């Protein structure tokens, strides 16, 4: 209870009054307004240029450099915004400690009511930027949406889905939604491809064919491990082929290539596929739904 008188005194100091408003704001002139307009225009131009230039250049450079360039975008944009805000404050506000305290308090109260979600998104964006749970160019799943992070804005992140749709997700969604990141800043992301064969199939042979399919695919990153995991199901034997494409963007082409190679080889070796009917089919459908 004894702290309240001090807080009250502090509030008296920080809340701007009619007497100290002159000292808080600088004199408004046409010149300062023109400077402010110019600052906003330059900042906007720079932000647009950064986005366009990095998008264009990152798609032209070799893969190894693509992610470095993309990952620098949010930081460059944040730098531009920071410089622009400091410049604007400098134009209109006398930047003493107490003035800034008063101003931020006032702005916080005003924005807290009017733009609560917007501010929440911006703060979530800044926190996510430094937490590094995902970066530009990563392939992430946020909620029900999966895709490549193609833009990291002030308020939202944009994903390009495998169907070439663009999904905009506000940063404040990230407070509560789990984020699954497939490649975490790397070019490669593990791709898991399922295969099913009949119980009587020669598993040693099929497993070897799967390994060789991965090693022979042009997309495979051979510097990373290839693993085959076998599981028994009631209706078939499931083989999971886990391997990495050289570029996570190729994951669906990679899966297609693997399936084609494995099916051709299985046909050559007469590998039996599961014959499903009745209860087994229903169970398989249920499992694929999972």
């Amino acid at each position, binding site marked *: 209870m004894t702290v309240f008188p001090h807080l009250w005194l502090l509030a008296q100091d920080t809340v701007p009054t009619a007497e100290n408003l002159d000292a808080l704001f600088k004199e408004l002139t046409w010149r300062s307004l023109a400077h402010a307009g110019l600052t906003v225009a330059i900042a906007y131009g720079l932000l647009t240029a950064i986005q366009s230039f990095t998008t264009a250049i990152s798609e032209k*450079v*070799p*893969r*190894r*450099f693509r992610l*470095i360039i993309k990952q620098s975008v949010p930081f460059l944009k944040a730098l531009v915004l920071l410089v622009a805000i400091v410049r604007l404050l400098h134009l209109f506000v006398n930047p003493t400690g107490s003035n800034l305290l008063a101003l931020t308090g006032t702005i916080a109260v005003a924005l807290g009511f009017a733009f609560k979600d917007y501010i929440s998104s911006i703060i979530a964006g800044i926190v996510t930027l430094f937490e590094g749970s995902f970066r530009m160019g990563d392939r992430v799943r946020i909620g029900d949406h999966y895709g490549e992070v193609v833009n990291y804005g002030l308020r939202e992140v944009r994903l390009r889905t495998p169907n070439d749709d663009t999904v905009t997700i506000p940063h404040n969604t990230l407070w509560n939604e789990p984020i699954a990141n497939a490649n975490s800043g790397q*070019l*490669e992301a593990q791709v898991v491809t399922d295969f099913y064969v009949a119980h009587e199939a020669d598993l040693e042979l099929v497993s070897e*064919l799967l390994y*060789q*399919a991965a*090693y*022979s*695919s*042009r997309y495979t*990153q*051979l*510097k990373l491990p290839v693993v085959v995991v076998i599981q028994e199901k009631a209706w078939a034997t499931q083989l999971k082929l886990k391997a990495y494409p*050289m*570029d996570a963007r190729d994951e669906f082409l990679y899966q297609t*290539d693997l399936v*084609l*190679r*494995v099916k*051709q*080889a299985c046909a050559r070796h007469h590998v039996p596929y599961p014959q499903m009917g009745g209860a087994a089919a229903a169970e398989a459908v249920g499992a694929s739904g999972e």
Partner: protein
Amino acid sequence: MTKQLSGLWRSLSQWLTQQWAVAPTVTESEEQWAALPAGITQALTQQLQALPPPVPHTTAIQVATREALQAWQANPETVSNCLVVLASPVDAIDLVLKAGLQDYLLDYEVRFFFGGYHRPPNALAVTGHLQRELAPEQPSEGTKPAMPVTQTDLHDSRPQVNIIPSLEPCFLRCIQGWQGIEYLQNFVTQDDSCFWVVGCNHWAWTFLDKVCQVGAYLERTLALPQLSGDDLADWLRPMAEVVLPRESDAALTLKIAQDDATYWEALASVSAGNATTAAYLWLQTLRIEAAQLAPDGTLPPDISCLEITPRKPKLPSLMSLEALDRYLLHALLLHGEITRSHLALSMGEDERMIRSRVQVLRREGLIRQTGRWLTVHPAHYPKLYTELGNNNFLIGQA
């Protein structure tokens, strides 16, 4: 992590320098030079291909083979009975091995296998061919294995050295496409009655080591040394004066200036010491004074001697590659030389899908076709090495 990042930035700056290097402007002094007429370039290419391999390469092979042989002879039970000689994908390793070892190991019985062997249309048939060639007679059950002959004995039986000049035709990157290599690595390690020398390109070796751990079986390797400017000058010295016979007129003598040491150093630098690349770059730098040509740009019929001057060596520019081009060029470098149908099989594409890209790459000079066989043009190798490495491909040593 810091080391990785700094490496990445260094590669990026190198790549940017390579990409955005300002093209040299054509000065007046450059205008006085003209490219060689096509007929002369073709004749010089044939002369180049007939040159014996560089002495540092054959010497390195001879020294390494002798050392490996002596070590095996001294201790055949524990020392590997195989030496693998690695070269760049554009070097003709089979010719280098032949030149280095054919008349060198006189006190050994030297046998060459698969000289001029090409991958069969059915790539899975390679294992059968290897079996037929290497072990024509299957030992019956219970037969004792032959005792290794590591020294010349009283019956004048000499130790045997088997040479497989090139591994590349023995595999194809497809399912079961490297069964031949697995057969070979088992055969070589099980048959310790003789010594083996095997040639392979760095890229194929790196790939095979990943997919069938060939390095664990054939552990002793020798990488052909990079050539210095002096080595290149010595190697190409026979090209200083070339006499080209002509059907109707007297022979044409080509005199190629070769006494500029800085030129050879520059050539060694841009070719990264790779002999075949350097030879083709050298050929591309050759110019004649425009004044020696007739007004229509051809050689005057009465000319008997042509003075040729090498200009500053530089790598040819690389076209902007599509994703499919990179996979295609990687497959070509991996297999050394390959037919279009094998290329399609290896890439998992229909042949007609890759035909158009092969045509484009041929037109741009990146790919050469000899008969049915496609290869990468050696002059483009240094840039392709950087390009594919930066695009996350598994590549071998330069």
